[in-house]
């Protein structure tokens, strides 16, 4: 099964860094960049029916729909039942409450702290 990556984050530099590292470790994956929660949710909806496995990196602190709002949207739309969707929460804050909250969502695969290292990304998407 082909894999694709979805980066949902309001910080363009972070998106660029993550995309570049992914291109180095696992080319040629398709990478979708979404600059806010609304775009991210729409993109996931879009990818719902594709046959590709999707790994999503979701930032917590975003203006508008934040990471938690996106997770709630995913639950409401039943995307989380898709075995092809793997969601990783990403945050620059080291507040433990965020980590604990993410564990309340059974479909969240993991929690990653910024900056994402090469190793973080390899363990999340695997190297090709």
């Amino acid at each position, binding site marked *: 099964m082909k894999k694709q990556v979805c980066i949902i984050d309001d*910080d363009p*530099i*972070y998106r660029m*860094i993550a995309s*570049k*590292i992914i291109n*180095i470790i696992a080319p040629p994956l398709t990478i979708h960049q979404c600059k806010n929660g609304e775009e991210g949710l729409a993109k996931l909806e879009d990818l719902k029916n594709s046959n590709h496995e999707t790994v999503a990196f979701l930032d917590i*602190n975003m203006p508008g729909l934040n990471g938690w709002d996106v997770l709630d949207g995913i639950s409401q739309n039943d995307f989380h039942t898709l075995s092809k969707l793997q969601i990783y929460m990403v945050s*620059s*804050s*080291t*507040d433990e409450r965020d980590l604990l909250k993410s564990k309340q969502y059974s479909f969240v695969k993991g929690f990653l*702290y*910024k*900056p*994402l*290292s*090469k190793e973080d990304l390899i363990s999340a998407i695997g190297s090709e």
Partner: protein
Amino acid sequence: MQLHPKEEEQLIVNKFTSKEEHFSANQFSHFLSDGKEIKVEIYFKEIKSNSNSGVIVQSNDISEVLKYIQTIEIQNEKLRSIAWTQSHEVRAPLSRILGIINMIELQPDDRDEVLFWLKQLRVSSNELDDMIKKTVHETLQIKQQ
């Protein structure tokens, strides 16, 4: 004239008669002659002379001190909240700076890449600098309140 609220009065009398010099909870309400209520700490000492014996009781007004403590507690709460926001906000540019350094280390020989990331390093460092200045400013404001 009533000097202390009824429920406290009995407690104070008990302490006097038991001759304990230190109250475990030494903070009582005290009514002034004009009816105003203040908070006091009470100390006493038994005095004996050849002909007489008696007790010296000293009540210190601690209303002001308690008010200061309350102010300090409010300020502490504000400082805690500043610390919380800053640890969240400050870490955003900082983690970006660390990510940029990762990029430079990944491709140290690509001159254009390195120059691009150096420029980004400056942008994020300035952002971090602004945030630290903002924190200092907010902290100073609290002191003046």
